[in-house]
């Protein structure tokens, strides 16, 4: 090895060591665990531990509840990510508008939900969404709409969770998008106006293309985060009603820490990892292609 190679390894060594101890080894152990039926009985007596190969994965694929959890998670991601980013983008555009006043105040106010505690705001949202006394249903009643059982009706529970999650998270992306918007040189808008582009045209042909890299980054982060949906249903609905808000991560938590089927829960974790990996990889490719052409 060359001298610089040795120095390189020496410099990277500590970081690699940390990654190995805190990432590679646990992941390898998790993978090994997912190939066994480690459960309560194995915890008591290791001789009852059975190597089951990929049986956990096959069983998972045959478990209707897993598919339901996966369906719920995709529902949450496919609706929640666009809604959340749409809200962030809308709020960022409003804050960035020239006519906007008290920008600093609104920026802070809109960012506030991000720094609140999920558990605390969930209590408030449960009141807002209450069927009989909730503010939302009272507002709807004013419009002549019958009360909706937001958290108790299996059809409305996931939209309620999406609404809650989008409200809780949009401020974070808003700040990133706002920074990207403020980085767009004002001269470009001036020349666009000279060329006769209206506000709509300015947005589609100028703002949006310049914002695309940031949007993709924000999209991937939000996607990866939203796939790991857990806290919102945990505090709002406990996965109900009729398991309509059970996410894959919630399913894993129940299997692992409630029922102590650690082997099976590890298989769920790996499945979720593969899904997130595949989806984000796809999204990155989608981002690169137009740039390459």
């Amino acid at each position, binding site marked *: 090895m060359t001298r610089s190679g040795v120095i390189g390894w020496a410099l990277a060594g500590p970081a690699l060591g940390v990654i190995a101890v805190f990432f590679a080894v646990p992941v390898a152990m998790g993978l090994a665990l997912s190939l066994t*039926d480690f*459960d*309560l*009985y194995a*915890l*008591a*007596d290791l001789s*009852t531990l*059975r190597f089951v190969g990929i049986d956990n994965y096959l069983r998972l694929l045959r478990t209707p509840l897993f598919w339901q959890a996966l369906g719920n998670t995709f529902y949450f991601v496919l609706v929640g990510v666009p809604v959340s980013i749409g809200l962030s983008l809308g709020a960022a555009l409003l804050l960035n508008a020239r006519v906007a006043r008290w920008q600093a105040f609104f920026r802070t106010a809109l960012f506030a939900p991000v720094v609140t505690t*999920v558990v605390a705001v969930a209590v408030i949202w*449960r009141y807002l969404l*209450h*069927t*009989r*006394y909730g503010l939302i249903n009272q507002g709807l009643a004013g419009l002549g709409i019958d009360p909706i*059982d937001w*958290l*108790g009706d*299996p059809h409305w529970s996931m939209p309620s969770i999406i609404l809650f*999650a989008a409200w809780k998270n949009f401020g974070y992306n808003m700040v990133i998008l706002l920074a990207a918007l403020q980085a767009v040189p004002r001269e470009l808008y001036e020349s666009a106006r000279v060329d006769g582009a209206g506000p709509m045209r300015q947005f589609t042909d100028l703002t949006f293309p310049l914002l695309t890299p940031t949007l993709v980054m924000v999209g991937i982060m939000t996607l*990866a*985060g*939203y796939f*790991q*949906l*857990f*806290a*919102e249903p945990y505090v709002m*609905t*406990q996965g*109900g*009603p*009729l*398991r309509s808000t059970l996410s894959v*991560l919630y399913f894993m938590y129940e299997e692992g*820490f*409630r*029922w*102590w089927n650690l082997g099976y829960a590890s298989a769920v974790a790996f499945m979720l990892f593969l899904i997130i990996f595949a989806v984000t990889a796809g999204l990155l490719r989608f981002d690169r292609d137009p740039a390459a052409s």
Partner: protein
Amino acid sequence: MGATRRQALQTLAAGAAIASLAGCGRRDDPKGPLNFWAMGREAEVVAELLPAFRARHPGVDVHVQQLPWTAAHEKLLTAYAGGSLPDLCQLGNTWLPELVALDALEPLDGRIAESKIPRDDYFGGILDTNVMPVVGGTRVFGLPWYVDTRLLFYRSDLLRAAGHSKPPESWSEWTAAMRAVCERGGARHYGVLLPLNEPDPLFALALQQGPLLADDDTRGAFAQPAFRRALGFYAGLFAQDLAPAMTAAQISNVWDEFARGLFAFYVSGPWNIGEFRRRLPRERQSDWATAPLPGPNGPGLSTAGGSSLVIFRSSRRKAAAWHLIAYLSEPATMERFHALTGNLPPRRSAWSAPALATDAPSQAFARQLERVQAAPKIPEWERIFQEMQLAAERVVHRAQSIEVATTQLDASVDALLEKRRWLRARALASAAPR
């Protein structure tokens, strides 16, 4: 989301660290303080019972640690895995099978006999939840500390107005009473509140019909006629609009709604005696009562819940731990405990105290406690219990028929119990003569 998960992991890690520190102290010092884990309100109150114990056993210093109920189960299993269990613990009696399967609990038969604690003073069904099968017989692994069962809380005024002066004793009387109340009350009035997220009421009704598991508790028996009858009655209450298809979360305040007369019956447990007294308006205080749970043909069985006191095998101060359990199990201590918490005592002799003997709502519990039955004693039960309620929820929401739901339930229960069948086959094979 990501952040919350990280926080959860940090909490777990911190918990493990604390647990291991506690473990170090314990192992080094067999004469150190007695570690007692208790949960929720009981942990707050037990300190008030300790001065009398200290006076009697000056050498034993008791250290009570409070666990929140929601985290207790995880914490116990983590402590087991980490070898840092306390000396003794308050344990929900449906958790005993799990810890017995882990071989974490100390059998108490010898000590009970030595201390001359009369076993038959305990309500039979309640004590039985602590009796577990072991190789070559059964052993007692815990002593009941307080009891829990489900029965009827009802609006006696609404019932009287609807022409029923006595609480119902059978399913048919109960249905008739609910119909009468609903007809009188009109729309938006229901007979009974059975929160859809609570499995206990359905479980009590099912106990009245027959066993829920078959083949030495290694297969489900939910598709058998017994359970189908119970589920048919339960789901029928919703189908006939006698019960609202709601979860507890949807009714933000059960007591307000009960006072308003949204429902006339509520199937609930002993803690609600205190809650009803505290939370119902004064003018409603004479309008409610309790009654044992109706059965198919007369007074029926209900669930045998509550908490027990157990000693862990790993403890090095078992004698001292037993002194504390024996003290907490004395009728006089139980009476004080009831005065402090409202928890009902498991020993009949403790029920002669005036606070219980003359208290009408409690007396219905005393009658019910003579008719309670333990849940199947397997670690998987808690999960089967939840699956049962999910199946019932599907039937109530008319997503599935009773036939389909119970057949599916049996299939998933059989899958859950696969390891038990394997373990049993293995045990049989090793016991068979070669």
